[in-house]
């Protein structure tokens, strides 16, 4: 499992979504240094969420019989439904506060995409191997 690569991609995705939502309401060029700096706390949040809530599924369940694809198909639906419920609750509880809503939406989309990236690692590896074989032939 390539956790650092996943974390880098996820934190970038989370930053883009978070600031796109905020920028849609209040955009100011002076905010750009804050946007750059915010990558650090966002990265920390992504580490906590991805390593704390997604990686354990792959670490605990992956073996010769149970592939990443199977883990994804079995666990992801329940994970996403719970995450969606929590994010919706958070948004309503915060009375649709812009920053908290942006946080919840970016967290939801990022965790979902992170699941897909982890699950696709095997597939992409196999596709690349197949492409290399085709080129060799």
């Amino acid at each position: 499992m390539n956790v650092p690569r996943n974390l880098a991609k996820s934190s970038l995705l989370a930053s883009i979504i978070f600031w796109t939502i905020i920028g849609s309401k209040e955009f100011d060029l002076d905010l750009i240094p804050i946007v750059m700096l915010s990558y650090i706390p966002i990265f920390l949040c992504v580490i906590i969420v991805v390593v704390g809530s997604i990686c354990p599924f792959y670490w605990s369940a992956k073996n010769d019989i149970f592939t990443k694809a199977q883990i994804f198909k079995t666990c992801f639906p329940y994970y996403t439904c719970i995450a969606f419920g929590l994010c919706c609750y958070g948004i309503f509880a915060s009375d649709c506060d812009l920053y908290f809503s942006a946080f919840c939406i970016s967290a939801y989309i990022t965790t979902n995409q992170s699941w897909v990236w982890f699950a696709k690692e095997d597939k992409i590896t196999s596709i690349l191997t197949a492409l290399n074989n085709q080129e060799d032939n």
Partner: protein
Amino acid sequence: MKNLIIIIASFLFSILFYDRAIGLNLSIFSLVTIVFLVIYNPDTFKNKTILLQTFAYVLSAIFVFINHSSLAIIANCAAFFTLVGAVSQSSTSIYVQWFNGIYTSIAGFFHRNFDVNDEAKRVDFKKYIDYLHMAKLIGIPLVFITLFILLYKNGNPIFNDLVSKIDFNFINIQWFLFTILGYYLYSNISKPVQVEPATSIDLKTGNELYQSNDFSEEKLKKEKQLGTTLLGFLNLLLVFYIVTDLLSMSSIKTTVASELSNHVHGGINTLIASIIIAIGIILYFFRGDLNFYTKNKTLKNITFSWIALNIVLIILIAFKNQIYITSFGLTYKRIGVHIYILLTLIGLITTILKVIKIKNLTFLFRRNTQVTFVVLIICSMINWDSHITKYNLTKAKAFDIDYLINLSNRNAIMLNELKEDLTISQENKNRISTKYRSHMKDLSQRNWQEWNYELIANLDKFDKTKN
């Protein structure tokens, strides 16, 4: 072509919902969704189950427009998830359809993104790299140009002035993001997905109960004796309780609200405990081979009599609740008690069917969740606020005007019409007038997306309110 349909649907989604409250828009959205699902899944709409679910969805959409209540909106959402779930797999239980529907609506895109065909992926892989390159080509220069504009802005006042004059306010990014949300939703439901292995397990699970291989008459005889003794005593106890309850009912003073309230709520608590334990015990004894034991007639009869006694208990509670309603009027809690009683009665009937027809636990879950869904749809068809107000003011022996004023605005017009005939204080009459004016003002300011039946039916009253 099909992508174009999703884009059109997502624009419609934005036009209907962006910065608007719920009203006519949800009804139109429901119809658009049905057309959209038919276009994408024409074959599945030949199935009777799906046609029935579509009918329920249309019905709930109509009643969102007519009643404009939270319950109608909840029922509409439930019908939406059921329909999407049924399109994904129509033969599953309704609770699996809900799950499939919710999963498809919120994460179908991610599921399909993962679940693409490997062969197709191989062909598209280079294309994917091109997209990535294009994203880099646009994204990286954009980031650096913004960064350098920011740097140069502080170094040159004329450049700063020019940059400050650039106004992007004509672009509504929020509207654009909302349209993307619409695109995401329609893209998700265009090809409904299934939760596995929940769907396949449910499809494999039938409703029938089968005799096991280790069928032992000796063991079943003992179990039957235990069941007969336990249920026999419970029957006696319940008969005794019902007799005492009937005696206590004759002494209830219908003029004392607290006494009636205690009777109903005490009864409901007894009912909840009794029914849960009753169904639990019955399910335990009829979980397996006892259903196929030839000498189980006595146990079955005692079970039926116990269910019948529980039904009598339900009728008694319903009767007490009705006395409460007649004396002190309708409230949401009192209506809730009646609905709970109805659901409990249906639960007991399905338990009888389970025992008679030798069905398993899944049968009970399936039937009861179906009934709950139907009850939800039916309840959403009723304008409860209006019914409560009308009943309390015209038929009940006493009413609580504070409760009626504090209900949602959907009874404002009726309250205003009836207020002169009521013997209430001037202060309460003023509160009703304020509520009415505020409601009419709210109705008159609504956009077409937020319209509902109440608004159209009272168009003539707006001018009077303004005056």
